[in-house]
């Protein structure tokens, strides 16, 4: 196995696992903001309990997701040093801005939010969660700016074989950015909504206590998922135009533009296979199928009337069983976008084999195995923990538990146990 293949496998594994965490984070934080805002505005304790219950699941997912994100960030330097050497002047900027402007603040705010219950004033505490959500979206935006530049490099000029930034505005108006950002953010909302609806459905099927609570979150989850799937579809199909025009080889097929581009690359970079692997288009087909299937969420919305969805019960099973679908779809979507960019790291500018670090295959293999095992374990642990805590119900979600009153024993258990 050569270093290039190993590095690509590692990138695919890390990115896929990381994204499973990201969509849950983006979706849940949006819904949490709504719930905590409702609590502060109305003072209804139901919203507080919802915030604490879903906040717990959000925090578990976030903290484990950080670990995968750190590997993502380091991987560029470890495995793809050619990327920083040739295009780092342009590609590095949005990533640097993401860490400083978004992620740094997001984690700082979240730490204060977790430990700030009953310690900060309600308004300040809510403001922290808004801060977490806004920086999460800012983070997604800057990552998409960086990724879109790899899909369609703009705003640069090459001097001495190295790309230099000439027009940062062009990165922000990149045709492969706008619709893709909307698509990813809606996918996050879809996952958040589906997860919320499915966990609520499980509790309603099992007839656990807190009927009213889970009835509310079922409704919120389903309505969110319905709106989100429509946005996912809209932004998704809207991408075909701009992406097809800037990346003619992406979706396979044999268009005249693609042939012309491949001929141009052959003269500039020498002969080679410039068509992406079939894998990307196959994945895209399945993703679209899943997208249409999930569109059926709209059919469940009329059943919210007079709680028919709960009385009939089988729709709850449908919601529960559908929960893996959006996760499969988001992975397939990224495979289509990233594998469809091959054989380029930066489309038409930097071939993948020139970007890989000149480290030996044994080192790369050890890294691939080590990090894949580590991140895979984290992902499995995450899902086991989420399931366990979701199943435990909202009786006393320990996140935000009030401090013990004087004279009573302090809480013997940690807040999330």
């Amino acid at each position, binding site marked *: 196995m050569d270093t290039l293949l190993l590095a690509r496998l590692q990138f695919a594994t890390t990115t896929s696992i990381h994204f499973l965490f990201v969509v849950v984070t983006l979706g849940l934080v949006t819904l949490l903001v709504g719930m905590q805002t409702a609590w502060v505005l109305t003072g209804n304790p139901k919203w507080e309990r919802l915030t604490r219950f879903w906040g717990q699941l959000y925090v578990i997912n976030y903290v484990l997701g950080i*670990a995968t994100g750190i590997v993502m960030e380091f991987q560029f330097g470890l495995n793809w*040093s050619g990327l920083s050497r040739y295009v780092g*002047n342009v590609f590095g900027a949005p990533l640097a801005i993401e860490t400083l*402007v978004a992620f740094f603040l997001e984690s700082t705010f979240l730490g*204060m939010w977790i430990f700030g219950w009953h310690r900060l004033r309600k308004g300040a505490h809510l403001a922290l969660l808004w801060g977490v959500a806004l920086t999460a979206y800012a983070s997604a935006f800057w990552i998409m700016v960086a990724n879109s530049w790899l899909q369609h490099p703009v705003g640069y000029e090459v001097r001495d074989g190295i790309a230099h930034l000439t027009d*940062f505005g062009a990165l922000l108006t990149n045709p492969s950015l706008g619709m893709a950002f909307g698509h990813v953010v809606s996918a996050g909302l879809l996952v958040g909504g589906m997860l919320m609806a499915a966990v609520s459905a499980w509790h309603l099927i099992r007839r656990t206590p807190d009927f009213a609570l889970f009835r509310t979150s079922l409704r919120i989850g389903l309505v969110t998922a319905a709106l989100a799937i429509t946005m996912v579809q809209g932004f998704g199909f809207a991408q075909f135009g701009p992406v097809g025009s800037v990346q003619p080889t992406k979706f396979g097929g044999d268009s005249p533009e693609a042939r012309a581009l491949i001929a141009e690359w052959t003269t500039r970079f020498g002969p080679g296979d410039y068509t992406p692997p079939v894998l990307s288009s196959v994945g895209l087909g399945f993703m679209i199928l899943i997208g249409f299937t999930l569109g059926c969420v709209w059919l469940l919305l009329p059943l919210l009337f007079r709680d028919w969805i709960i009385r009939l019960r089988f729709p709850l099973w449908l919601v529960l069983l559908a929960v893996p679908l959006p996760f499969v779809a988001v992975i397939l979507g990224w495979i289509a976008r990233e594998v469809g960019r091959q054989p380029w790291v930066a489309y038409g500018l930097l071939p993948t084999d020139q970007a890989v670090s000149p480290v030996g295959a044994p080192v790369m293999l050890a890294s691939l195995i080590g990090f894949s095992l580590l991140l895979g374990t984290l992902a499995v642990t995450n899902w086991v923990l989420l399931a366990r805590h979701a199943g435990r119900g909202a009786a006393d979600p320990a996140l935000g538990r*009030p401090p013990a009153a004087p004279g009573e024993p*302090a*809480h013997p258990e940690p807040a*999330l146990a």
Partner: protein
Amino acid sequence: MDLTWYALLGLFFASYLVLAGYDYGVGLLLARGGAPAGRRAALTALGPFFLGNEVWLVAAVGILFGAFPVLEGELLAGCYPAVAGALVGVILVTAGVQLRSRPSDERVRARWDRVIVVGSALAALGWGVVLAALLQGVPRQADGHVAGVSHLATPFAAIVGLTMVALVAVHGATFLTLRLPVDAAAVAGRTARRLVPVALCAVAAATVVGLLSSRVRDAVQRPAVGVLLPVLLVAALLAARAALARRRPGWALIATGAALALPVALVGAALWPYVLVSTADPGASLTVADAAASAPTLRLLGWVALPLLPALLGFQAMCWWVFRGRTEGRAPVYW
């Protein structure tokens, strides 16, 4: 412009070592075992700061990528095992602290605590080796790539890694002296004072090995700064010990923090104007100016990021202020 960004890179990486340093130090001290309540109390002391500490590393690497892309690729790929080891350590600590209290069985929790110990040691070792690699130079070839990773396997790198572990342990114990309830803090204070001589010995050993190493002598551009580093480290550690003896844990923490920040600043100064000194080909040494991104990129980063810097520091300071003081048994705990 590149000097400003080089200083910022140093600031963020040094802040990471100081802040996450006490996370790892507290993690290492879990190795003492002890009653479950004591281990829980130590992690509770980290509580609200834990998430805000690690972000400095992510931001430092962000600056490294955005402002010094050439250095990013060569340093990380050239020190692959050290960086990957540190990274595994960071992940183990992040996950371990979060997960250790999920199971209710104390034996399982003790096993998770061992994961945190291993992670903390790996993180400290890894970053120590990276700093050592800078000081002893790397085999950067004329084509601009660092050849192989065997250049890391030197006695100097090993002893600097171990010194970092010792410094982090002192720092963690000092942090607990400041944060734990008074009774437990006295115990932590004694541990910290006992660890100071260990750290002093490690610094002395690293100094001797460094002076004996021809690679280190050749790579250091400013020998005076190079000698100043161990002198200041010893001074900081002695100051920490004196402050601990006088029951001034706040000052002691500042001193142990300085012991973790100083190496970053002085390694940068000792190598200036280079950042990667090549042991293979003097012409292949990388200067800070050559490592920096081109002017338009630095200007852009300056416009976007610098105005936000006060906000970044302000919100971190807010976190320290809101959760200042000693922990007490009442508040709900998280880790």
